[in-house]
């Protein structure tokens, strides 16, 4: 037996070899570098070229960033301090910091108010955006619009309280009537709410100094605060409006369908700039002289209309993507239209539409800078107008525009990251 085996013994190992680390070239960073960067001659050349480009950019950018001047009073002092050396004149950011964030005319001792509203925005948005947040926080979300209005615009707290009261009573009426008829509940609630608001407005109009903050006119809003105000309000208003328009466009009632189609097609066919000019310039001719129809309100209406038309089309795409069977299933369960939409169709359609909606929201947020064209001092308007036109800072471009780009990038990137997280959360087709 052993003989037969003897011939092959030199070739048979009888004990296990101990485990050995892979060779240095086949593991870890070395392997990664070799495989990803230098695996062939063309790759090697591309890698070297890319490294060179990065080096050139950084060797210009880093000295500019790190060698910058942060505490001079104007561009001439800046140049004196730099004395020919490379470096940015970031003093403009520190000197005009409050103007970049809050505009030129917001009361300086009231900067805590928009800051507070900004912080509370996260508390209010959290329960809507994240399912894991305790539901009790939703009460903050409901109160937030009224609180933020009071903080930012000031005045007596009774004004937003009156609005809140009318909403609450309107909602109670709605929830009573909705059991018998959805439309009856909706219109009844709105009608009662408007009446309550009107009456409460009359009653509170004399009590202007109850818990009053210093009142700030809309004209005095500016800086990045204005972009945030416009962005947040318009996105949150245009989403429900867009859903209504999308449903209306698919409605069986010809009048409603016609109105929605005309509205969407008209608004989508007109540039936003045109709408803003209408809000600012043309409306002034049709309103009686001396009418003070708030400019920000006009702009909010125009931007909301614009965004809701786009969101309506995005959601219509979501509705169209649902298989016909979903609608039929809802019908066969005996649900009425409102129930079917609320419980079956919209949850699925909205999920499909998330990337599109986020796309519109990000675009809308950046579009708020267009208000600088109608001489409102948002962040871009502040830079283009007052700051670059001051004798102190005329000629500082990169630092200011870089800062504006950074602020917008942070917000837009945040929105986009959230939407990707949300898509993963809502994924139901487990593979």
């Amino acid at each position, binding site marked *: 037996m052993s003989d037969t085996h003897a011939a092959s013994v030199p070739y048979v190992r009888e004990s296990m070899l101990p485990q050995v680390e892979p060779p240095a070239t086949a593991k870890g960073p070395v392997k990664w570098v070799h495989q990803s960067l230098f695996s062939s001659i063309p790759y090697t050349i591309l890698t070297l070229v890319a490294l060179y480009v990065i080096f050139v950019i950084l060797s210009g950018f880093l000295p500019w960033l790190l060698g910058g001047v942060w505490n001079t009073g104007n*561009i*001439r002092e800046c*140049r004196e301090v730099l004395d020919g050396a490379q470096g940015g004149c970031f003093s403009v950011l520190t*000197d*005009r910091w409050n*103007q970049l964030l809050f*505009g*030129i*005319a917001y009361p*300086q001792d009231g900067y805590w108010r928009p800051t507070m509203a900004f912080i509370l925005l996260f508390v209010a948005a959290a329960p809507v955006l994240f399912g894991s947040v305790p539901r009790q926080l939703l009460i903050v979300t409901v109160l937030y619009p009224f609180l933020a209005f009071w903080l930012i615009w000031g005045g007596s707290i009774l004004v937003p309280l009156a609005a809140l009261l009318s909403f609450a009573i309107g909602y109670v009426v709605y929830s009573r009537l909705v059991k018998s008829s959805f439309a009856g509940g909706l219109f009844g609630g709105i009608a009662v709410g408007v009446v309550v608001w009107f009456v409460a407005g009359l009653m509170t109009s004399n009590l202007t100094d109850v818990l009053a903050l210093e009142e700030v006119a809309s*004209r005095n809003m500016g800086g990045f605060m204005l972009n945030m105000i416009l962005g947040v309000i318009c996105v949150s208003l245009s989403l429900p409006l867009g859903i209504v328009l999308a449903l209306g466009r698919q409605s069986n009632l010809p009048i409603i369908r016609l109105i929605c189609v005309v509205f969407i097609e008209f608004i989508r066919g007109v540039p936003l700039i045109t709408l803003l*000019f209408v809000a*600012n*310039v*043309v409306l*002034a*001719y049709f309103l*009686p*002289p*001396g009418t003070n129809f708030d400019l920000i309100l006009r702009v909010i209406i125009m931007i909301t209309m614009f965004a809701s038309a786009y969101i309506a089309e995005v959601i219509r795409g979501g509705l169209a993507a649902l298989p016909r069977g979903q609608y039929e299933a809802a019908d066969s369960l005996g649900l009425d239209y409102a129930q079917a939409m609320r419980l079956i169709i919209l949850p699925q359609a909205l999920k499909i539409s998330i990337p599109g909606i986020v796309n519109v929201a990000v675009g809308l947020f950046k579009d708020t800078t267009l208000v600088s*064209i*109608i*001489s409102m*001092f948002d962040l871009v*308007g502040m830079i*283009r*107008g*007052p*700051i*670059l*036109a*001051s*004798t*102190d800072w*005329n*000629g500082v*471009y990169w630092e200011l525009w870089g800062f504006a780009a950074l602020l917008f990038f942070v917000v837009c990137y945040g929105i986009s990251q959230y939407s990707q997280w949300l898509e993963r959360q809502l994924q139901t087709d487990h593979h």
Partner: protein
Amino acid sequence: MNKSVFFGALTVAGLTAGAAAASTLDDVKARGKLNCGVTTGLVGFAAPNANGEWEGFDVAVCRAVAAAIFADPNAVEFIPTTGKTRFTALASGEIDFLARNTTWTFSRDVDLKFDFIGVNYYDGQGFMVPKALGVSSAKDLDGATVCIQTGTTTELNLADFFRANNISYEPVPIETNAEGQQQYLAGACDTYTTDASGLAATRATFETPGDHIILPEIISKEPLGPLVRHGDNDWGDLTRWVLYALIAAEELGVTSANVEEMATNTTNPEVARLLGAEGTLGEMLGLDAGWAKNAIASQGNYGEIFAKNIGEETPIGLARGLNAQWTDGGLMYAPPFR
């Protein structure tokens, strides 16, 4: 042209709507504030400082009018306007008074139904060249590349000038002044042309302003002045004579420093009338007797305003030139206060 006809028609509509309203002065007094249209920002002429207070050459005129009416130069609501929104803002009544370095032209005065109340700055189109180019006159610019803002009157003026002098040039079209600065500094053009005050302001922002010169030739007339709506002549008179009061004050030697003293013990009868010590000029305008005194005390006379905002001591460094008093060979000439 079509645009101006359109705006003109809109203006008429606005005017007929506004005609029923009370006089502008009554409106302003009832409001307690002057609504003054200014630019969203032009170096030296109007811009808010780090504290958000508006400052500048045009702003001073607004403040002087407010001081004449309310004895308070801060009773002004500054309403920033762009080149596109300024005329509609005035025509629709959103602002009472537009002081936004606006060139006085025939069609704006006649077709758009505005009244220019005077000229507070005589501007004109000029050329800036690098010193190294060795050019001392615009007529030496044969074959030069010229940075020029498209769609402006400066573009037309430029073509006229070069054709009249029978020399050639190559235009480099740019969109904004900021772009012009960058292109010029990058050497994309030999010379940059726009209004002379704008050239001076632009040059003041360069790292080495001394390397660039502004050529002596001024090739167009750009009289910049404040304006009001057609139709309320009392309001036009008031603003016009506030501007003249500032100009006359310089001629008569009244300054913000000595105005109080001059008002009480001057021997010059015209100064006495101007400052309200004699006569009823203020009453004729519907103001109190100290209207001009308040305007001058708060803002200084025309020369002081010029020196403080755009004069040779400022970074902008404009010489008086055409804007000197007529007694010094300039065009500033106020009619008599009598």
